[in-house]
């Protein structure tokens, strides 16, 4: 547990899930919360030390296709911004998004999962674990996402890289 993340940045465009996540994580872990991904760079610059975890809500995937694919790319953008501003990669990067039965959004989710696995391969020699969490869009589903996030940041799962967690809500 000594590897547990200490400074977490949450970013995402949806207020409810992001604040729920923030509450579920240890309060002292969450250094800043953004609802506007574009301001992430500016906020990281203001931090006293680099965040060792990024949790990114990929809520663009809620939008209509083809714009929804921008959401899938938000995790990559956030990692790059963090690296460019702070000079180092976060040890953990987690993208979270709600599951969808809608065909095109399910396709975009699959694209995000595959892209993230490729990003993991690109970063295979770097000290960063990148994973995705697809949660059911219910209160319990969101709580499961928060729990899973906390587990991934605990230091117990540092060998888990490039996995998409498709969670249940039962």
């Amino acid at each position, binding site marked *: 547990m000594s590897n547990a993340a200490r400074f977490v940045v949450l970013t995402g465009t949806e207020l409810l899930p992001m604040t729920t996540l923030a509450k579920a994580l240890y309060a002292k872990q969450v250094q800043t919360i953004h609802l506007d991904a574009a301001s992430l760079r500016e906020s990281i610059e203001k931090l006293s030390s680099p965040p060792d975890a990024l949790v990114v809500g990929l809520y663009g995937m809620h939008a209509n296709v083809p714009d929804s694919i921008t959401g899938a790319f938000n995790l990559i953008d956030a990692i790059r911004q963090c690296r460019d501003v702070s000079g180092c990669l976060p040890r953990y990067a987690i993208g979270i998004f709600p599951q969808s039965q809608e065909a095109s959004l399910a396709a975009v989710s699959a694209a995000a999962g595959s892209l993230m*696995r490729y990003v*993991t*391969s690109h970063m*295979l*020699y770097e000290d960063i674990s990148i994973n995705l969490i697809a*949660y059911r869009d219910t209160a319990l*589903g969101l709580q*499961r*996402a928060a*729990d*899973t996030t*906390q*587990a991934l940041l*605990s*230091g*117990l*799962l*540092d*060998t*888990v*890289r*490039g*996995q998409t*967690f*498709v*969670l*249940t*809500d*039962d």
Partner: protein
Amino acid sequence: MIDLRGQVALVTGGTRGLGLALGQALAMQGMHIVVTHRWGSVSDLELNAAYSAAGLPPPLLKEADVINPDDTRELLDTIFERFGRLDIFISNVCIAGRGSDFDGLRFRDLRQSLDYSVWPTQQYLTQIEARFGKVPRVTIGMSSDGPDHYYPGYDYVAASKAALEALIAALAPEIGSKGGRIFGLRTRQVDTQSLAQIFSPEIHALLTQRFERFRVAATDMGDAAVALCGGLLDGLHGQVLCADKGAAFHDNFIATLPLWQELHT
């Protein structure tokens, strides 16, 4: 995370390698550990010494063949009498022959592999529920990435792991309805005695020395098991957690060419 202190965990095949590490990781959380072995593969003294060296109290060691229902019944009776509860069940036994070439494949070897490495998970769960009146809070089946990757000699292990993961997914609804959680825990190339037994010395050296960077330690798997037992991953019910440092996805002819070139220069 759920406080695991005072809970009871059963680890089949828990005397060496991965099973030993899993038991020790849970013991470090304050759990009572019960481990099984077969045919005198380890003595109480040896196992207690291993736990003592890690600063842990000795586990309860029972000899029990996983395919023998009478052994299982006696084991569960002992746990019930000693602790009155069983919270965690880790199905870790995998006994499989080494596959050979096409003509060397034998049905009896496949059958034996499944008998020892797959069906005991379900049989244990049935008997645990009968003895304790409920299923364990968490069940973990130990798997590997063999089903999705070709490894020489790994035929029967891979088939067994594929069957185990499918069984876990299929059992999940019923286990969930009874208040339990069941997961698969997958990895690759953990440097244990089993790895040396399955692969040739050359391949073993390749995996554990040349590509040491991607080797997962047995203690890493212990950590992952603790995370699965702690409740935070309950949403992963019925699925497989893969702890491989991302190496399996990267491991193919084309992607590893630069690594080979680096090794040969």
